[in-house]
C-alpha cells in the first residue's frame, strides 16, 4: 500500500557480487550473518555523489540496513567493517582466488534468506586470510573449497575407502566414488595421486597450515586439480571463475 513503511532489518554481510541496474543503480548479492543470501537494490550507488557506493564493492565486509521488498530488498544504509577487497586488489592472483571463493559461496546458498552462518564465517575467514597475505593465496582458496564442500556434505574421503569404508591409507582416488578407494572398490580410470597430495588435502581440510605450506609446488598443483574436479562433480557445473584463477606467486 502506498505510504506503508516496509520492515527494516540490519545485519553483518559480505558483498558477493554486484550487477548494474538501470542508469545508476546496482543489484548487490550479500551473504549475511543471520539472513543467509540476500539480493538487494542499491539505488544511485554508481553516481560519484553516492554516500555508500564505495562500500558496496565485491569482497567488502559491511554492516548493512535493508528494507524488505516484494521481489528485491533495498539497501538503505551501509557502514564499512573491513574493505577486504581493497587489501588484495593490487595482487591479481589473490583477486582471482577471492572471486572463486565468493562464487562458490553464492552457489552453495541456492535459497535466498536461508541462514548460512557457518558458510558466512568460513567465507569471511577465507577473504580475511587473502587480505592478510600471510598464507599462499592458492592454498587459502583450496582450503576454502574443501571446507565449504565439507560443510555442504561433500567432503572427499581421504583416508578410509569412500565406497566400503575399509581403513586406509589407500592410493586410488576416484572423484565419482567420493575420494580414495581400496583395491577392491577402485573403479576403472581411478587416479593415483602422490600420497603427499592426499596429505595436503587432509591438512587443508583440518587447517594444518604448517604441514600445508611445507609441500612442494607440484603437489599443490596436483591438489588444486583434484579439488577442482571434486567440486565440479558435486556442483554439476564448473565455477566460471575457477579456470581464471591465476596460480602464479606474486612478484
Amino acid at each position, binding site marked *: 500500500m502506498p505510504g506503508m513503511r516496509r520492515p527494516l532489518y540490519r545485519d553483518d554481510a559480505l558483498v558477493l*557480487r554486484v550487477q548494474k541496474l538501470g542508469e545508476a543503480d546496482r543489484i548487490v548479492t550479500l551473504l549475511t550473518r543471520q539472513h543467509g543470501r540476500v539480493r538487494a537494490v542499491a539505488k544511485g550507488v554508481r553516481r560519484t555523489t553516492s554516500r555508500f557506493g564505495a562500500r558496496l564493492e565485491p569482497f567488502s565486509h559491511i554492516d548493512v540496513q535493508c528494507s524488505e521488498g516484494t521481489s528485491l530488498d533495498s539497501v538503505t544504509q551501509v557502514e564499512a567493517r573491513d574493505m577486504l577487497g581493497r587489501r588484495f586488489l*593490487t595482487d591479481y592472483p589473490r*583477486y582471482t582466488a577471492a572471486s572463486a571463493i565468493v562464487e562458490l559461496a553464492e552457489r552453495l546458498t541456492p535459497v535466498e534468506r536461508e541462514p548460512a552462518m557457518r558458510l558466512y564465517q568460513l567465507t569471511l575467514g577465507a577473504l580475511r586470510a587473502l587480505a592478510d597475505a600471510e598464507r599462499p593465496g592458492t592454498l587459502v582458496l583450496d582450503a576454502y573449497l574443501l571446507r565449504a564442500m565439507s560443510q555442504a556434505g561433500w567432503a572427499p574421503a581421504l583416508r578410509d575407502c569412500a565406497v566400503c569404508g575399509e581403513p586406509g591409507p589407500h592410493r586410488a582416488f576416484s572423484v565419482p566414488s567420493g575420494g580414495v578407494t581400496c583395491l577392491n572398490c577402485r573403479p576403472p580410470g581411478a587416479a593415483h595421486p602422490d600420497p603427499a597430495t592426499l596429505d595436503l588435502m587432509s591438512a587443508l581440510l583440518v587447517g594444518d597450515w604448517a604441514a600445508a605450506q611445507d609441500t612442494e609446488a607440484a603437489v599443490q598443483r596436483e591438489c588444486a586439480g583434484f579439488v577442482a574436479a571434486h567440486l565440479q562433480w558435486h556442483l554439476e557445473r564448473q565455477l*566460471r571463475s575457477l579456470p*581464471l584463477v591465476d596460480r602464479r606467486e606474486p612478484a
Partner: protein
Amino acid sequence: MYEGAIQDLIDELGRLPGVGPKSAQRIAFHVLAADQTDIKRLAAALTRVKEQVRFCVQCYNVAEEDSCRICRDPRRREDAICVVEEPKDVVAIERTNEFRGRYHVLGGAINPLEGVGPDNLRIRELMARLSSGKVTELILATDPNTEGEATATYLALMVKPMGITVSRLASGLPVGGDLEYADEITLGRAFEGRRTL
C-alpha cells in the same frame, strides 16, 4: 496488449537497456504521433549505425573508417596510450582536454564472476601495440571499481617488465563537494594521492 505493428514496436523497444514496458509504450505512442520526416530520420540513423560504424583497427574505439578520428590525427602523441574499458570512456576523457595521446579500448574489464578473463579483452592487441617500442607511457583509466582496479593491476603486472611508465588515474574528492559528505574510502584514497603544493 495492442495489435500488430504497435505491439511489435513496444516489444522491440522493451528489449533495449533501461527501457521498461511503460517506457516502451510511451515511446511507441510518441513515434506514432510524431512527424513522418522525424521518424524516417530516426530509422535511417538506426540503420546507418549498424551498417557504417565499426571498431578502429588500432585502438578499437568506434569509427566510420578503418581508423578512428583520434588515431588518424597526426597531432596526437604516439608515445602515450590511455587504456579505457568502453568507447564512451574515450568521450569522457576527451571532454577534459587534458590528454593529447592515443587510446586503447579494452571492451570491458576482467570479471571472473562473469567468466571474463584477460583473454576475453583486447589485451593481446594492446601488448602488440606496446611492443612496437614507440610507447613510453601507459595510463590506466579503467573504472575505479573492483573489476576496473583488478584489470589495472593485471595490466601493470604485464607491462611494467617492458620498461614502460605505467600510471593510474587518481581517485579522490569530487570538485564542488563538501569534505564531510565524502565516504571514508574516497577520502582515504584522496589522502593517499595527496600532492605537494
